[in-house]
C-alpha cells in the first residue's frame, strides 16, 4: 500500500498538535494529589480536638459513650445493665435472638457477637474517658470537676468490667498510640478502678455543688470497688469511703430522644422492643421482683395479655423506667448506705446493720416501707442485705456483681445463687457461667490468650 502526503497538511497537523498541547498545559500545574484531593465532611479530623472546644466535645463524647455502654440505646445495642439483669434474676428474656438467649441461659460462646459489642462499648467509654483527661488538662482545665468526672466514670467502667467479666480482662489503649494491655485479675481490675477514683478525689476539692456531686460519685464508686475487691479491710474501707455521701445524692445518666443512642436502653428494651421482661423467681433462686409488691420494683403488663417479642413470654415492664428519657441512677446515697450496712453486718456486732437498712426504708422512699426483722442467722442476714440491695438497686447493673460476691465472699454455691434448672419459658437449661467471658475478638490483642479463670 502506498500513500502520498503533502507537506502542508503536516504543518497543519503540527499546529493543531501545538494548540492541543497549549490546552493541556494547565494540567502541568496540577499534581495528582491535587486532582485526587477529596474532602469528606462526614468525618472530623483528629486535629479538631486540639482546642478548648475540641476537648470539651471529646469530654461530652466520653460521657455519651459511658451512658451508651452502661445503659444501651433505643433497641439495637444493650448495655451492661441489661446484660447483667438478664444474666441474673432481674430480667427474663422475652425475645428470639440466640446471642441474647446465651447470656440469659448462662451458656455463652466466645464468639457471641452481641456480647462482643457490649464488651467493646465498655472499653470505648473507658478509653475516651481516659483520653479526655489530658485533652481537658491541656485545652480546657477549668472547671476541674469535668476532669474529676472523667476519672470517676473511667473508674466505674473498670468496676463494671470487674463485676461482670471473668478474671483476665485486658485494658488496652488506642491513644496516643496503640498499646495492648495485659490481662488483669478481678482484684487487679478493682485496684485499677480505685486508682481512678482516688485521682478524681484529688481534683474534686472545691466546695461548689457541681464539684461535690462528682466527689460523691467518686466516693460511691470507690466504695463499690472496695466492696467488690473484698480483701482484708476492704469492706470497712468501702464504708469509710462512702461515709460522707448524703442520702439525697444521686448521679444519673440522663437521656433524651434526639437520637437513638441517647435513649434509656433499659426502657426501650423492655417497654419498647419487649426483648426483656421483669422476672419472677427465675430459675428457683431468683427473687420475686414481680410479685413481691415492693414499690421499689414495680412492673406492669399492658394489656393484660401482652407478650414479648418472642410472641409468648408474658411481658412485664419495669415502672422504674417508664419513658425513654427517664434518668438512670449510676451511683447514689442509697448505695452508700447499703455499703455501710453491709460493712456493719460484717464487722460490727449487733443490729446496726439492720437499723441502717430500716433507716433507708423509712427515709429513702415515700411512703416508708415497713421495717425489717432480723432473720436471725448469719446466712439469712447476708441474704437480707443482698435482697435489700437487689430491690434498692434494681436494674442499675449491680446484681451480677452481688451474686458473684455471694459466691466469692460468702461461700455460696452457684446453684444456690444463680437461676438454675430448666428455663421457665422452655428456652433451654441454664448453664454454669457465673460471669461474662472476654470475647474471642480480644485474641487480636497479642497479650491475650483467654480468661485467666471463669471463677466467681
Amino acid at each position, binding site marked *: 500500500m502506498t500513500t502520498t502526503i503533502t507537506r502542508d497538511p503536516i504543518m497543519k497537523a503540527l499546529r493543531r498538535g501545538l494548540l492541543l498541547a497549549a490546552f493541556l498545559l494547565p494540567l502541568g*500545574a496540577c499534581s495528582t494529589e491535587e486532582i485526587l484531593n477529596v474532602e469528606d465532611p462526614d468525618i472530623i479530623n483528629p486535629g479538631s480536638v486540639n482546642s478548648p472546644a475540641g476537648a470539651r466535645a471529646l469530654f461530652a463524647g466520653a460521657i455519651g459513650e459511658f451512658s451508651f455502654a452502661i445503659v444501651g440505646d433505643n433497641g439495637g445495642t444493650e448495655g451492661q445493665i441489661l446484660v447483667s439483669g438478664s444474666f441474673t434474676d432481674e430480667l427474663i428474656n422475652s425475645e428470639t435472638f440466640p446471642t441474647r438467649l446465651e447470656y440469659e441461659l448462662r451458656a455463652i460462646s466466645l464468639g457471641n457477637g452481641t456480647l462482643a459489642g457490649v464488651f467493646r462499648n465498655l472499653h470505648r467509654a473507658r478509653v475516651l474517658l481516659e483520653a479526655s483527661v489530658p485533652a481537658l488538662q491541656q485545652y480546657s482545665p477549668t472547671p476541674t470537676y469535668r476532669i474529676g468526672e472523667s476519672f470517676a466514670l473511667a473508674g466505674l467502667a473498670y468496676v463494671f468490667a470487674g463485676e461482670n467479666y471473668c478474671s483476665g480482662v485486658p485494658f488496652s489503649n488506642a491513644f496516643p498510640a496503640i498499646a495492648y494491655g495485659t490481662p488483669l485479675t478481678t482484684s487487679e481490675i478493682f485496684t485499677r478502678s480505685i486508682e481512678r477514683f482516688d485521682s478524681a478525689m484529688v481534683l474534686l476539692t472545691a466546695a461548689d455543688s457541681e464539684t461535690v456531686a462528682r466527689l460523691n460519685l467518686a466516693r460511691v464508686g470507690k466504695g463499690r470497688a472496695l466492696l467488690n475487691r473484698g480483701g482484708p479491710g476492704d469492706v470497712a474501707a468501702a464504708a469509710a469511703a462512702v461515709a460522707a455521701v448524703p442520702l439525697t445524692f444521686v448521679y444519673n445518666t440522663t437521656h433524651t430522644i434526639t437520637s437513638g443512642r441517647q435513649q434509656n436502653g433499659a426502657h426501650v428494651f423492655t417497654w419498647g422492643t419487649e426483648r426483656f421482661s421483669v422476672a419472677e423467681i427465675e430459675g428457683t433462686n431468683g427473687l420475686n421482683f414481680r410479685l413481691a409488691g415492693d414499690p421499689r420494683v414495680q412492673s406492669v403488663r399492658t394489656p393484660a395479655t401482652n407478650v414479648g417479642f418472642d410472641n409468648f413470654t408474658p411481658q412485664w415492664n419495669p415502672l422504674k423506667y417508664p419513658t425513654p428519657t427517664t434518668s438512670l441512677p449510676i451511683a447514689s446515697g442509697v448505695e452508700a448506705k447499703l455499703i455501710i450496712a453491709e460493712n456493719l453486718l460484717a464487722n460490727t456486732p449487733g443490729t446496726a446493720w439492720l437499723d441502717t437498712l430500716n433507716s433507708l426504708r423509712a427515709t429513702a422512699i415515700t411512703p416508708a416501707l415497713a421495717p425489717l426483722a432480723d432473720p436471725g442467722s448469719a446466712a439469712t442476714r447476708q441474704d437480707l442485705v443482698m435482697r435489700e440491695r437487689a430491690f434498692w438497686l434494681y436494674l442499675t447493673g449491680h446484681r451480677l456483681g452481688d451474686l458473684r460476691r455471694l459466691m466469692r465472699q460468702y461461700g455460696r454455691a452457684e446453684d444456690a445463687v444463680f437461676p438454675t434448672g430448666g428455663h421457665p419459658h422452655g428456652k433451654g437449661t441454664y448453664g454454669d457461667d457465673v460471669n461474662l467471658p472476654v470475647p474471642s475478638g480480644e485474641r487480636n490483642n497479642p497479650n491475650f490468650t483467654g480468661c485467666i479463670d471463669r471463677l466467681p
Partner: protein
Amino acid sequence: MRFTTCQIRLRAALSAALLVTLTSTGWAQQQGTIAGSVTDRVTGTPLAGARITILGTNRSAATNQEGRYTLAGVPVGAYQVQAVLIGYGAATNTANVTAGGIENLDFGLRTAVVSLDAVVVTATGEERGRVMGNVVSTIKAADVVPLSSVTNFGDLLSGRTANVQVLSSSGTVGTGTRVRIRGLSSFSLSNEPIYYVDGVRMESSSNSFSVGTGGQSFSRINDINPEEIESIEIVKGPSAATLYGTQAANGVIRITTKRGLAGRTNWTVYSEAGVMNDNNQYPTNYFSWGRAPVTNTVLQCPSTTAVSGGCTIDSLTSYNVLMDPATTINGTGYRGQAGLQVSGGSEQVQYFVSGEYDDELGHIRLPEAEYARITQERLVSELPYEQYRPNEVKKVSVRTNLQAQLRRNLDVGLKSGLVISNGRLPQNDNNVTGMLPSGLFGKGYSGTRAFGSDWGFFRPGEVFAILVEQDITRLTGSFNANWRPTSHLSARATVGLDHTNLVDLRFQALQEGPDFGTLRRGQKFDNRFSINQWTVDVNGSGNYTLSPAVSSKTTVGVQFLKEFSFGVGASGLEMPPGGKTVSAGAIRSGSESTGETVTLGAYVEQVFGYKDRLFFTGALRTDDNSAFGRDFSAVYYPKAHVSWVISDEPFFPQAIPVDNLRLRLAYGASGQRPGTTDAAQFYTATTSTIRNVDTPALIVGSLGNPNLKPERSTELELGFDAGFLNEAAHLEFTYYSKKTQDALVLRPLAPSLGGPASQFENLGSVQNRGLEAVLNINTSLGSSIGLDLTLSGSRNSNKLLALGEGITRAFGGDQQAVVGYPVFGYWARPILGYSDVNGDGVLTAAEVFVGDTAVFLGYSNPRTEFSTNLGVTLFNNRVRIGGQLDYRGDFKQFNLTDYFRCTSGAANNCQALNDPSASLDDQARTIAGRTATLGFTAAGFMEDADFLKLRELSFTYFAPDAVARALRVSRASFTLTGRNLATITGYSGIDPELNGIGQSDFIRDFLTQPPVTYWTFRVNLGF
C-alpha cells in the same frame, strides 16, 4: 457537586482537547472511494448494520438499511477490506483505490453462529475478536428481548453465558439480583462487577435503599431498560479488564445502547401484558396440643418435650395461613408495558429515539376479610391503594441517541437516557413486621387463641399499612467523538455523567400498622440522595503496517472517574392525627452524608499482529485513587495477551474437522479500591445528653490505616474458540486462574483498644480457578426447521489462601472466611448421626450426636452451573419455541426459615417439633438446633441446594407478510412467554435461591418472597 480546582482544570483541558479534535480537518491526500453492498450469500437479502473495515487502518463504515456502504476519502492504495456482522462469518476482499475513483466492493456473507472477526467494544475502542487474548462474551440483547419479554436487566443477563451467575435474592417486584463472575474474590468489598453504558461508568449499587424492608432493596442495575440495549459485552476478569483499572477486578459489563442506521425511518411498537402468580408451596404450621403432667394445664406440647415426660400430647393441629384461600395474601399480579422506538437517518446523521412505560404490580394484596376489618376499624369506606397492593414498580424510560459524521474523518455521538420510576416494597425477611415472617411463624390453627395467632406477629392489615417507597430520576448522558486525522491515527474521547436523584420514603400513620415498639405513634422517614458518576476517557491510537506481514497498533489514554454522592435524611416520629410529613412529627431529626472518590488512570497498549492470525498484546495501566492510604503511591496493572488463529496457518491439518480454531492466552491484573474513608483516621460527630441537655460531642470513628492500598487481582486465562459444521457451531473453552492479593481484610481490632470493631488491612489472598465452556449451534434441521442452541457451563473452585500472620479466620458465624476453605462457606458443628435407641420413633437429645467443633459444610454460591438456551423455529421461521433451563449445583443454602420455625419460641411450629411421626432426619436436625449441649447447631438446616429451573419458555409467531400488510405494518410478531415455570430440587425450603439479606454474600433463606410465575403476551410491530 464539588470539584477541586485541578479537577476542573482536568475536565476543562480534556474538553478543550475535544474541541480541538472537533474543529480539525484531515490530511489532504490523493483519495478515492470504496463503496458497495453486503448481502446474505444464500438469500441475497441486504444486510443492515454490517461493519466494513479497511484492515490495518482506522477506517470503517456501517451498511445502511439497504445493505449499502460508502468509505470516502480513502488514500490511494491497495487494501484488504473486511465485512463483519454478528451472526455471519467475516468476508475479506481486496480493494484498489485510485485517485478520484470509486472501487466497487460487494460482500456476500455466510451465516456463522459466532465469528472470530466480530467487533468488540474494549477499553481502548473497538477491536476485532480475533485480536484479543481473552474470551469475549457478548449478549445480543436486541435479539433476545423481543423473543422472551425479559422483565429486567437481571433476566437479560441470566443464563446467557458461562460463569456469569445472576442470583435472584427474592421474587418481590423491583428487588435486585447479585451478579458474580468467576467466583468471589473479596470478603470485605463488593463482588459485583462494574458497569459502563456507552462508555460512561454507571452507578450500579445492588442494594440501593435507605429505609427498612427487612432485607430486600432496589437495584440500580434494574433501572436500565433492556429494550434500549443493542448488546452487552462481559469482560470476565482481570486478565481482560486490566485497562479498566482499579475497581474492575470483579469484571466489567459494557452496555451498548441501540443506534440508528442510515435509511428510511424505522418504527417499532411493542406492547406487553401479563399476569404473575405465586405457585410456591409454603410450609404448613403445626401445633401440638397437650397437658402439663401434674396440673393438667393446657399447653403446647412439642414431641421433643413429650418424649421425656414433660407433657402429654392430646392432639395435633395444622394450618397454613399463607395457602388458605380465605386468608392468603397471594393474589394475581399484573405486568404491562408499552413502548415505541424510532430510528433512521441519513449517511451523515443517524438517530434512535425510544420511549417506554412499564408497570409491574406485585401479586400480594390485602385479603378481603382483612380489608373489611381495617376499614371497619378506621371507620372508612376504602383504604389507600398502596395499602391494598403494597408492591409495585412503575417506570418511564426515554432514550435519545444521535450520531453524526461532522467531517469525513470525524464522527460524534450524543446519547442520553432518562429513567423516572416509582416503586414500593412490602415488609418481609428478617423483620418482625414482615408479612411472610408472620405467615411462616403463625400457629398451627386458624384464628387467635390463647397461644397466639395464625398470623405470628401481625396481620396483613397492619403490615401493609407500612409504606416504603423509592422515587428516582436518573439521567445518563454521554458525548463521544472519534477523530481520524490520518488513516493510521485516531483519537477517541468520551465524556459522560450518570446522575441519579433518589428519594426514599417510609411512612406509618398514627394508630395504623403493627403495634411494635413505638411504630403506631406514627413515623415518616424521608431520605434524599444525589448520586453522580463522572467519566472522562480520552485515548489516541496509531495503526501501522510495519511490513506486509506485521501490523502494529499503539494506544495511549487517560481516564478520570469521579464518584460523588450526597444525601440528606430527615425523620419525624410521633405523628398527630392526619400527620404525613416529617415536620408533622413531634420528634424530628436530620442527617447528612457525603461520599466522594476520584480515580485518575493512564494506560498504554501495544498490539502486534502477524499475518492477521497471530497477535501479541501488551499493556500497562497505572491508577491513583483518593481512597488509597496517604503513604501508598500509584498502582500499576500489566497485561499480556496472545491470540493465534492457528487454523489460518498453512500447516494446519485439513483433517481436523474445524472451520476455524483460535488459541488464546491472557494474563492481566486489576484492582478493587477500598472505601472512601477506610484509610483515614477520624472522629465522628454525635450528640450526648449531659444533665438532660443535648451537647455536641466527638467519639472515635476510625483509627486509620495510612498504608491502605487496593486489592490486586491477577488472572491467567487460556482457552480456544473453534467453529465447525460450516460455522454453524462454535465451541469456546476457557481455563482461568485468578488470584487476589492484598485482599482487604476487615481485621477485628481487640475490643479493649476502645476503637471501632475492625479496620481494613491488606492481608488476604483469595484464589478462584475454574473451567468454562460455551457451545453455540445455529442450524437447520430440515427444510423448514431451524435450531439455535446455546449450552454454557462452568465450575469454579474458590479458596482463601492466606490472611495476615497468625490469623486463620477473617470472620466467624454461619458463614466464615477460613484459610484453606472457600470464602463465605457455611460452617457449623456437624450432626454426626442419630439413633432411635428405644425405637419409639421419637428422638431425644441423647440420641442425636453432634461434632465438637464447627466444620466446613459447603459453598454458599453455586460451584457448578449449566444453562441451556434452546430455540426451535418451525414452518420456515414462522414459529419459534424457545426456553431456558438453568442448573446450579455444588452449593448449600441455609434454611434459616425452618431453623427458626423448629427452634425459636417465636414460632415452634414446624412439623418435626410438633408431630411425633415426623421423619427422624427432621427430628434430629430440630433437636440439634434446639439443644444447648449440642451447640444449637444449624448444620441440619444447611442443605444441599442444587436445582434445575425452567426459567423461561416462549412461543413466538412471526406473522406472514399478508397478515402484516393487513395490520398496515411491515412486520409483526406475537410472543407468549412464561417465566419461573418449574424447579426441581432436593432443597426442603421454599426456594433454593433466596437471600433474606438482599444482595449480600452472606446468604440465608429467611422469610423471603420466592420467585413468582409470569405469563406475558407481547406484540411487536414494525413499520
